């Protein structure tokens, strides 16, 4: 230890770098939620009558429910390993802002789960019969929505950290909070698939953006408080 304090932005980016590097050494962990997302969307045409018009009407709901479930599946691992090996305690003792370091972890987590999900969603939408010109809208909706989902999930993951078999409880805590994101996200996707553009499509996207901004502002503080309590 040289005794020189790392600046806050640098610490933030170091944590992101570390988490991304760790994740790329074990690609299975962040590929699984995307595979899960693909399988769930695949189940809808199989379980229902695969008539194109009906599938297209169903696509927004199917995409968003699948995205919500897959982000829930992934969020369980957000703090788990670092909680077990004591990394989170070192974060808390590091003298850096705890909320900022945990927020960096959430950002890395979003890169690893939210972005692949947003990239996979247009492909799945295409498979469910969405017209090609709607795909940018679908991508944008998932990209904005997954920010809120990751941030809400971070609070839930912090609260259930260290609880044995916390998975079912995590879904009970996270899903009710995710409902506004689901509502506006599915609305945006529905409008995009129906061929809307301009202001009509922008309205739910703006609301998704507003939820994301609200999440970035408040969720890291709540998540840090939750993790700190779990570490006590």
């Amino acid at each position: 230890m040289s005794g020189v304090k790392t600046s806050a932005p640098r610490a933030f980016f170091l944590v992101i770098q570390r988490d991304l590097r760790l994740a790329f050494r074990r690609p299975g962990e962040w590929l699984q939620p995307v595979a899960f997302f693909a399988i769930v969307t695949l189940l809808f045409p199989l379980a229902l009558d695969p008539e194109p018009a009906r599938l297209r009407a169903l696509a927004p709901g199917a995409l968003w429910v699948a995205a919500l479930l897959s982000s829930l599946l992934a969020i369980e691992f957000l703090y788990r390993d670092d909680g077990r090996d004591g990394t989170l305690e070192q974060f808390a003792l590091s003298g850096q802002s705890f909320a900022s370091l945990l927020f960096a972890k959430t950002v890395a987590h979003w890169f690893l789960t939210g972005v692949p999900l947003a990239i996979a969603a247009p492909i799945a939408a295409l498979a469910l019969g969405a017209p090609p010109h709607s795909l940018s809208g679908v991508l944008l909706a998932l990209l904005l929505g997954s920010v809120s989902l990751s941030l809400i999930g971070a609070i839930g993951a912090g609260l259930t950290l260290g609880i044995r078999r916390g998975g079912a409880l995590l879904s009970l805590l996270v899903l009710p909070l995710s409902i506004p994101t689901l509502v506006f996200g599915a609305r945006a996707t529905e409008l995009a698939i129906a061929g809307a553009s301009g202001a009509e499509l922008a309205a739910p996207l703006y609301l998704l953006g507003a939820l994301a901004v609200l999440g970035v502002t408040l969720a890291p503080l709540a998540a840090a408080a939750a993790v700190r309590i779990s570490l006590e």
Partner: protein
Amino acid sequence: MNWVWLHRFGSPPYFYRWAGRIVPWLAWPAALLILAGLYGGLVLAPADYQQGDGYRIIYVHVPSAWLSLMIYTVMALAAAVGLIWRIKVAHAVAASCAPIGAWFTGVGLVTGMLWGQPMWGTYWEWDPRLVFYLVLLFFYMGYSGLRSAIDDTTRADRAAAVLAIVGAVNVPIVHYSVIWWNSLHQPPSLALTSKPTMPASMYVPLLLLFLGFTLFFYAVMLTRARAEVLRRERGGNWIRAALETTR
């Protein structure tokens, strides 16, 4: 300014004694108000010209729905007080609110559904207010679930408090959902700021029941909180003295 009178409530023995003294003063008026309100609402009030006698379920539905939101607010405030100033009694109060709130939410949902069947022709409609109200029930369940999942009382208190504060975003959404969305559920018929749209024989019993239910909640909540304080302080010496004086 002298805040000692307020600080005393943070002391479990003081709170225990104070709550024990105040509960009868809440419980008896609550019983009288609820009986009077029910008599007024179910017997004296005239039948509605459109809904007949079916509207009378509002005398249970509306106060329950109002309480389920108010209890969540009380719970979140108590949780915040407990979290910020580390007051254990506040956590005991928040813990006592959750089951009562969940029950009132359940009563609100069931009475609403019973009313909806003859009036709307369906027990359930995917309407914003109904959905967010159901979500409120899930918040109560999540709160109790998180609390029971953590063995250590202090940790459970603090984690549940964070959840209660985060979940408080749902309260204004439920409250304003009928105004924000063009919803099937009618807007509130009673407001402090405007003249009531129904005759006095209809709304006076409703007001009595509002007040009665609210007092009932505080009486039950304080009784539960006393038990909760006893459970948490079970090693304390003051308990023996407190229990002996009441006997």
